[in-house]
């Protein structure tokens, strides 16, 4: 019988006010998340023979070869490594790559890890990227990175489709409601549309509450074969389909500022592989670096038509109790956003599928769609997960 790759473990580290509890280096927090995910899977670290890592830590220096460095730190000798970095969506791509490696017999137990201590270290400085190569045509203009690129997309979307700032605010408000149900979330106090509209202007039309948090965080995923999962008595989450794509790095090279082409490409492939329709999806976890990211993603994934994302999210449709549960841990907007957020989408989707999400548990989740976006609306990676 063919080998089937499944997710058997998820883990993260506790945060308080956006900082890792107890502190720690970026290697320590990744080791803690890895241990939590392996404990969840009931698989020992020594069995890990595939390591998938993406991050912005330790550069220049040991982070230039992140899987090599992390493998050493964890005391393992992987025979499969993948350091694909397409931005915050990298981890959804890692699930796909690990699935292919496991199903081909190239490795048996794959560990996907991410960590960041950017808040504790006050190290987030994307505006300080050197003006080399493609960047020489971007940062000489003083574009705030990455919010400026998303603001350009939001403005264009408003122009083409009549999307409003209030519609974007709906997303921030709904996501905060989910966060209020998640004890691990950084920002849990309820907010209103007016709060979002009156929050500090950052890069028009985006305001402070349209933007994700800047926090620490670490997460990990463990994958193995279904046979191995049964042997260890681990809980299995099945991977029904996946896809990935990227279209540009420079915002000036984005094919269409009002259209998330990468997500269209990746999700179409994932749906095709899974052989399911949109009606089969009970839950969506999608990257929310900014409110506009969510709106454009919902259109690109095909849950509404192009240009109708604003209408789609109105009346708190994506909030707890709404018709379309979305970003149920409180998302990057209100739970945490440690630079590259995509791993937490996967962690939350698996917990929801298993029925382990506590007060925020969505009823009857059998199939979930996870979609990561990376760069400046640059890359997309979609994974469709299911209980059977």
């Amino acid at each position, binding site marked *: 019988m063919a080998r089937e790759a499944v997710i058997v473990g998820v883990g993260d580290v506790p945060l308080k006010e956006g900082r890792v509890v107890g502190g720690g280096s970026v290697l320590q927090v990744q080791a803690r998340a890895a241990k939590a995910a392996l404990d969840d899977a009931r698989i020992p670290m020594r069995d890990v023979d595939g390591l998938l890592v993406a991050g912005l830590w330790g550069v220049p220096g040991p982070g230039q070869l992140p899987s090599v460095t992390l493998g050493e730190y964890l005391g393992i000798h992987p025979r499969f490594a993948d350091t694909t970095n397409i931005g915050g969506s990298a981890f959804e791509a890692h699930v796909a790559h690990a699935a292919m490696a496991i199903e081909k017999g190239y490795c048996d137990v794959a560990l996907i890890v991410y960590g960041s201590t950017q808040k504790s270290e006050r190290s987030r400085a994307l*505006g*300080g990227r*050197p*003006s*080399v*190569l*493609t960047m*020489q*045509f*971007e*940062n*000489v*203009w*003083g*574009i*705030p*990175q990455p919010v*400026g690129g998303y*603001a*350009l*997309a939001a*403005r*264009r979307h408003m*122009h083409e489709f009549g999307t409003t700032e209030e519609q974007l605010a709906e997303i921030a408000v709904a996501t905060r409601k989910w966060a209020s149900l998640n004890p691990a979330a950084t920002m849990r106090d309820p907010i209103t549309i007016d709060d979002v509209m009156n929050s*500090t*202007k*950052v*890069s*028009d*039309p*985006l305001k402070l509450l349209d933007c994700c948090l800047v926090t620490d965080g670490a997460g990990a995923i463990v994958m193995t074969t279904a046979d191995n999962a049964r042997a260890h008595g681990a809980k299995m989450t099945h991977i029904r389909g996946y896809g990935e794509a990227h279209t540009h790095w*420079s*915002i*000036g*090279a984005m094919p269409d*500022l009002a259209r998330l082409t990468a997500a269209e490409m990746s999700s179409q492939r994932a749906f095709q592989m899974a052989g399911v329709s949109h009606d089969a999806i009970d839950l969506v976890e999608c990257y929310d670096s900014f409110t506009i990211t969510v709106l454009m993603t919902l259109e690109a994934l095909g849950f509404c038509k192009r240009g109708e994302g604003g209408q789609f999210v109105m009346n708190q449709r994506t909030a707890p109790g709404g018709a379309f549960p979305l970003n149920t841990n409180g998302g990057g907007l209100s739970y945490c956003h440690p630079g590259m957020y995509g791993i937490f989408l996967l962690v939350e989707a698996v917990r929801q599928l298993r029925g382990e999400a506590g007060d925020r548990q969505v009823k009857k989740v059998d199939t979930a769609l996870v979609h990561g976006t990376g760069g400046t609306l640059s890359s997309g990676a979609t994974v469709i997960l299911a209980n059977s």
Partner: protein
Amino acid sequence: MSETQAYEKPQPVIDPGTKPFWDAAREHRLSIPRCRACGKHHFYPRELCPHCHSDDLEWTDASGKGEIYSYTIARKPAGPVFAADVPYVIAMIALDEGPRMLTNIVTKDVERAAIGDRVTVKFDDVTPELTLPKFTLDKD
């Protein structure tokens, strides 16, 4: 820009692939590559045409005219060196030749910029070695 005051904002690290663009800007020309195979212009400059992947490219002087495809008003600066400029306009211009480029709109009233506005290049000699092609609103 006073020449006695040091220019502290990011400056392009010019490389062989981009030097013709920056050299032209210093001469107040907006020069962009055009593909002899498919006839299309592109920006930023590449070694292969991003449309048809031909390597048969030539540098051509663009008209310096276009329209605003999108824009944002930065209310928070991209780092301390831009703090004194807030609020300022960053716009993506659709050049009449086709390609889009990021730039600044130079205007007294940042609220006036709108998508579809016609714009014209205005060269800003920020240092003796560096000229930035910014744009002005034709309606200003």
